[in-house]
């Protein structure tokens, strides 16, 4: 009875009411930020006295925003590629490997995910101060890779576990080199896992703030660092304009992901 919506009676309305309120709660800031970005009040008075495109003009007129977005994109792409490659290799080892201590190794690989990012950030900042990697592209990539890799491993091992190795063996029996079999048979079969790993890794790097605040230098800033310093130093509605574009990007990515899933299920 509790697992059948139609038989819940008055409880239905309680559940539905809570869900609607939560949906409004989740949507409020997102809708609000879009509205704010078109408001013409410099001091975030809402509702604004009038509407304007001024903040978008300022955003695109200031090369520092585009520069940081470009930096973010470059770092995120490199993190994505490395995270998928390392994740694939590690997942093969974890799922197919025959060595002792695989469970321990798996737990170890996932540790950066459960530790508070602030610890990793402070530790890497101190370490990079010594070896001179702060403010470098390599430093950013290494830092983001550490936190992205666990998600990549989870996504790929998940897919790999459901794939029967016998099919790969069959390909090898038919004369394929083991690596060829992996690339041509196994990889396509687990592509949805690889795809999620790539998306997760990209997004983690693209959105990451805490590590980036510590790694950033004047010449190398990611978009979140730019938003963060602007938030702290200059509360201009340009932040709302930038945020709105980020929301738009999220919506586009979600639609793409949904379409891919739909295409798969056909």
């Amino acid at each position, binding site marked *: *009875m*509790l*697992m059948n919506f139609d038989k*819940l*009676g008055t*409880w239905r309305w*309680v*559940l*539905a009411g809570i*869900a609607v309120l*939560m*949906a409004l709660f*989740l*949507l*409020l*800031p*997102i809708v*609000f*930020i879009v509205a*704010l970005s078109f408001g013409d009040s410099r001091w*975030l008075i*809402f509702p604004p006295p009038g509407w304007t495109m001024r903040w978008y003009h300022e955003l695109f007129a200031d090369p520092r925003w585009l520069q940081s977005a470009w930096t973010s994109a470059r770092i995120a792409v490199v993190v994505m590629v490395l995270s998928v490659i*390392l*994740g694939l*290799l*590690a997942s093969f*080892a974890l799922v197919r*490997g*025959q*060595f002792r201590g695989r469970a321990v*190794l798996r737990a*170890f690989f996932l540790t*950066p995910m*459960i*530790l*508070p*990012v*602030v*610890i*990793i950030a*402070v*530790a*890497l900042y*101190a*370490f990079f101060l010594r070896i001179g990697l702060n403010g470098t592209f390599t430093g950013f990539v*290494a830092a983001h*890779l*550490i936190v992205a890799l666990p998600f990549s491993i989870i996504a790929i091992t998940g897919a790999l576990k459901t794939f029967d190795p016998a099919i790969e063996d069959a390909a090898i029996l038919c004369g394929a080199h083991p*690596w060829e079999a992996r690339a041509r048979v196994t990889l396509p079969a687990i592509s949805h896992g690889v795809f999620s790993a790539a998306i997760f890794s990209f997004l983690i790097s693209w*959105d990451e*703030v*805490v590590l980036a605040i510590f790694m950033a230098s004047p010449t190398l800033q990611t978009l979140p660092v730019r*938003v963060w310093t602007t938030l702290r130093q200059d509360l201009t509605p340009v*932040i*709302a304009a930038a*945020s709105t574009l*980020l929301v738009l990007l*999220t919506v586009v*990515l*979600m639609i793409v992901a949904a379409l891919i899933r739909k295409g798969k299920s056909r």
Partner: protein
Amino acid sequence: MLSFLMPARRGSGLGMALPALVLLLAFFVVPVTLLLTRSVTEPQPGLQNYETLLGSATYLRVFGNTFLVSGTVTLVTALIAFPVAWLLAITTPRLAGILFGIILLSMWTNLLARTYAWMVLLQQTGLINRMLMAVGVIDQPLQLTNNLIGVTIGMVYIMLPFMILPLYGVIRKIDPAILQAAALCGASKGQALRRVLLPLAAPGIASGALMVFVMSLGYFVTPALLGGTSNMMLAELIVQQVQSLVNWGMGAAAAFILLVVTLILYALQLRLFAGRGV
């Protein structure tokens, strides 16, 4: 080129884990270990950093704030997430799809963008205060930012999906027949909820709660932007000690305490729910 990674078909496979292992050792284990060492070596060898942290009222307040906010956030998200996850599990696919879309949209929207929105929404002349005043709930604007109330609201917002998703996963797998059986045996809805549904959902609640609680303990961005000067949280303290005061010893000691609490909570979770398949 990849030949060194190419074990015999049924070889150990450890080699393939090597690149990730090396990366984690170099950029995770070594830096974290070096940092934690500094907690007992700077400014001089000894445990004085821990004594200061655990012995002064100011710092104990920071721990108090951190646990208070994390606990409240966990409780509030659990109270909201349970009915929502329940509804998601039993409603039509279409409605569930819309709700999931909203949850994922909020989860994937840039963290700073969301927090910025709350900064503006919650200020004294902000939308929330004005709506509350318009409907007559309050006549003076409430102080909702620069304090722990703002931090709690902002973090509940961020943590909700992390509670809903594991709960949904567990509730969805509950066999409706069990609840039907409860009804056949004469249980009222309230009894069925308390005695059957909640216990069956408990592992989901526990793993969601653990995740939310631990993430809240070490959260930096929301407290830094929505919190006030007089009620700092632990992550802020660590950053302040390291970045503004260059007091590596204290920063490292605070980080170590956070690390230990986190690991203990995870160990507890593994113990309590080992073998339950969650």
